[in-house]
């Protein structure tokens, strides 16, 4: 008979689960409330979700304080890992979600928000992402990834349009493939190292000096493919524009921010030690991947006729830009990644929300997509305030100073420069110039063309106070980013540096 294992509660450190548990309890609470009383208005669920997220954020801030004082907190036999980047990324995830969820309060009725399940799934998804970043155990990463992804597929499909179903199925199929790749890659890494924890894998590989380099190659290639899908790196990006187009604009904006930061953190944990191990081919693969992702998606974005698809390609390009941080691998670059993503969250969410407020129920006459460029013609004459807001987000995305994203771009290029990646720095700069064109195109439509007759009624159809508030927050965050950069940078650098990245 086996000896009973004595585990003290203290060694489990249950507290490390608190942030995720809050999200899960919130989801369950919503389901239970629905059982008790049906037919509650969506505003109720939005606010309940918001409150739980606020609690979640509160515990994360608490963890942040603990981290700065005592360093990394481990829990559950070292499966849970609350280090600096876990806390930072969770804060971005939860804060991004808090900005997203009020977008449900549209003035038009949309199918999905009538289901309380939507909000429950949303909270489950957040818990999934949080698990993903708060561990270096490949299995828990996988569980978190799948929880979040399955919830997200459902959220897309709930939009209840034929394109949404197409998007959900496409995303699901691609996601399943990526999950397969991930499982296979983890299996190979486990086979050569005997561990599923990334730091153990790193230690074992370093101890025998990468003698199994062939297997490492196989494992890492599968991992890159898996993360390629999740981060929509070219050539694994093909699902992205279609899925963004099929989802509601709000959800598309969300997808361009939150799932990606989670994937970035895992990629950082996994690839960082490989980059630093001096395995040259990995650097080459990553280098090529980064450059192609930035450049190719920029060129595709140039030829789009629909603003949402353009933004989809643009967010692929931004992801490629940020992926450079993982290639560069210095503390400055990794801090740059978080800074960039924090600033990008505001701007990109603002841009997608501007599409969301201009969403009409049915397609425009003579148009085949929801947000063709023509729809925004002459907006400065009909809706000056909305046009200015949209232009602001576009200028920020293009990296025009002093708006938010410029500072992220500058810091990222600066980190490439100081790590000796001169050519990469130039490629990043020139890609920003290419990207300038397609953002400019929307500004040209809004400011320099004549309004389309009869389109006025389609503008701001979906606007409501809460949507406008979100746009206002995004705009303030974008304009005054310059004052936030220094405190952000100091905090982020401390967190990243103390986590050993």
């Amino acid at each position, binding site marked *: 008979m086996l000896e009973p294992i004595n585990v003290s509660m203290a060694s489990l450190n249950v507290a490390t689960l608190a942030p995720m548990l809050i999200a899960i309890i919130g989801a369950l609470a919503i389901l239970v409330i629905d059982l008790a009383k049906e037919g509650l208005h969506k505003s109720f669920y939005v606010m309940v979700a918001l409150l739980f997220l606020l609690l979640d954020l509160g515990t994360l801030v608490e963890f942040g304080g603990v981290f700065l004082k005592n360093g990394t907190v481990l829990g559950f036999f070292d499966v849970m890992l609350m280090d600096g980047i876990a806390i930072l990324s969770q804060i971005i995830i939860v804060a991004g979600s808090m900005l997203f969820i009020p977008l449900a309060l549209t003035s038009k009725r949309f199918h999905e928000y009538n289901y309380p399940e939507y909000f429950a799934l949303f909270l489950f998804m957040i818990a999934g992402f949080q698990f993903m970043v708060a561990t270096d155990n490949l299995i828990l990463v996988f569980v978190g990834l799948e929880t979040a992804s399955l919830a997200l597929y459902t959220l897309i499909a709930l939009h209840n349009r034929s394109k949404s179903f197409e998007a959900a199925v496409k995303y699901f199929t691609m996601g399943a493939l990526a999950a397969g790749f991930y499982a296979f890659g983890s299996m190979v890494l486990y086979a050569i190292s005997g561990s599923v924890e990334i730091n153990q894998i790193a230690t074992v590989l370093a101890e025998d000096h990468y003698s199994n380099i062939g297997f490492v190659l196989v494992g890492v290639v599968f991992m890159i493919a898996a993360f390629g899908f999740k981060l929509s790196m070219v050539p694994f990006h093909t699902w992205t524009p279609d899925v963004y187009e099929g989802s509601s604009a709000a959800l598309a904006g969300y997808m361009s921010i939150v799932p990606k930061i989670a994937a970035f953190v895992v990629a950082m944990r996994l690839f960082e030690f490989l980059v630093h191990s001096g395995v040259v081919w990995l650097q080459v693969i990553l280098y090529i991947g980064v450059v192609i992702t930035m450049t190719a998606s920029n060129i595709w974005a140039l030829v789009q006729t629909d603003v949402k698809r353009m933004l989809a390609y643009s967010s692929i390009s931004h992801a490629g830009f940020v992926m450079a941080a993982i290639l560069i691998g210095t503390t400055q670059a990794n801090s740059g990644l978080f800074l960039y993503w924090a600033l990008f969250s505001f701007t990109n969410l603002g841009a997608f929300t501007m599409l969301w407020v201009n969403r009409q129920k049915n397609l425009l006459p003579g148009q085949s997509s929801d947000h063709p460029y023509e729809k925004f013609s002459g907006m400065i004459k009909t809706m000056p305030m909305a046009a200015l807001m949209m232009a602001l987000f576009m200028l920020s995305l293009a990296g*025009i100073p002093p708006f938010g994203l*410029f500072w992220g771009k500058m810091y990222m290029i*600066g980190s490439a420069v100081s790590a000796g990646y001169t050519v990469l720095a130039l490629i990043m700069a*020139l890609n920003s*110039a290419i990207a300038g*064109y397609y953002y*400019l195109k929307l500004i040209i439509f809004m*400011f320099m063309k004549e309004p389309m007759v009869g389109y006025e009624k389609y503008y701001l159809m979906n606007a409501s106070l809460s949507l406008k508030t979100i746009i206002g927050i995004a705009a303030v965050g974008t304009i005054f980013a310059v004052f936030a*950069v*220094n405190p952000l940078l100091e905090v982020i650098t401390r967190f990243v540096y103390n986590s050993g990245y």
Partner: protein
Amino acid sequence: MLDHILSILIFFPALAAMLGFVVAKDSIRAYGITVAAIEFVLSLWLWYAYDPMSSGMQFMESAPLIPAFGINYLLGIDGISLFIVILSTFFTLIGIASLTETRRVKDMIITLLFLEMTMVGVFAALDAIVFYVFWELSLVPMLYIIGAWGGPLRIYASVKFFLYTFTGSLVMLVGMLFMAYFYYQATGMWSFSILEWYRLILPENFQLWLFAAFFLGFAIKVPMFPFHTWLPYAHGQAPTIGSVILAAILLKMGTYAFVRFSLPLFPDASVFFMFPIAAIAIIMIIYTAMVAYAQEDIKQVVAYSSVSHMGVIILGTFALNVEGVSGSVFLMLAHGVVSGALFLLVGVIYDRRHTKLMSEFGGLASVMPRYATIFGIMMMASVGLPLTINFVGEFLSLLGFYKQSHTYTLIAGTAIIVGAIYMLAAYKKMFFGNVTNEENKKLKDVNKTELIGLVPLVILAIWLGVYPKPVLEPINNSVESVIQLMHDKAQSSEAKARIPNLSDAGAMKLHQEAH
């Protein structure tokens, strides 16, 4: 208040532009003029309070912006930037006062006020990133002015303008980041302060690369051959006010940046590239003069002549001695006054006839005598007649380069004289002969609104041509300290020889002040 005068100068127009959204449409013009006039008076006060004997930075302001990355809000002006700041406020005032645009005036004036902020900001910034912020931001209002009020090809022209400049500036940004990184390596501190960069002595091969990165950004802005192709489109399509501001101020950002960044930061590279750049400048002068001669559109003639004269500015800048650089800084002001005035004059006739083709005109001197007189004076100033403003600058620039190379100067000098041909030919086509076109017979002469803009420019063009000292002296003092700094920093023996040492020549005092 003088402690923060530069911040006030930068942000007052922007704040006024914000409030301008509230002002009613029919009062916006008066509002715009009022704001621009206050701003202009403030800038004159700046001149009054400026100490012309001191060569260093004055009215310095500093506040931490992103100290973790060495970015500070750092402002200050010296003799080089002082007058360009005044020129910016002056032209914004003149531009708004003589605005004949009737479509959506409110948007136009608010945009112009924002543009004024970015212009003053560029010339007052002493931190590379703050400089870059205003430099890039100035593209946006100009894009809107060309794209929304321009001619039939306005969208193409505005996008070309934006993308060209944007691409060049991004390469420059990489250069700036390198500069900051080298500073970090040398001192262990991040810094984007230009004054601190001045103290950094870089190995020559680094200088060459960084010079090239900065050069791309500046050369596109100037615009230097072969990057000049965006300018004729921009001028051709832009409304009058857009062309005026573009020619008078925005192009000066490039030449000013050469003096502020390239020369003192990379003295060895400046000497290394001196002759290639002089060759480009001479090609610019000759080639664009020839193109100007072939134009049928008077605005294009003025546009190409403006590029041609920018070539002289570049030549003077890369003479790398006090005469040349002071001359080129003075010529920046002169070029601003003259080409700004010429674009205003073209606007006057365009408003009346809605065409800019010279073949449509002829004999205007008898119909519009006052107009012909002003145009004549400005044209003479443009070809560099002695006792006009351009002459001083061109003469000094050429004199400066003469000390470096006789041959180059001779070619450039001849080219400038030949350049007079196209201006005189254009003037003849438009103003002399008989009035052939019926429509021209009833044309009205310049009216009061237009005179308000033109007369001050005429006075300036002659006054500073006859007596340039009040402006030239502060410029000279500051340029001397730049040249001395370059000489002290230069490493190669050729650079030491090419850049004069002023401290022997009784300029000891200036030298001490510079350090």
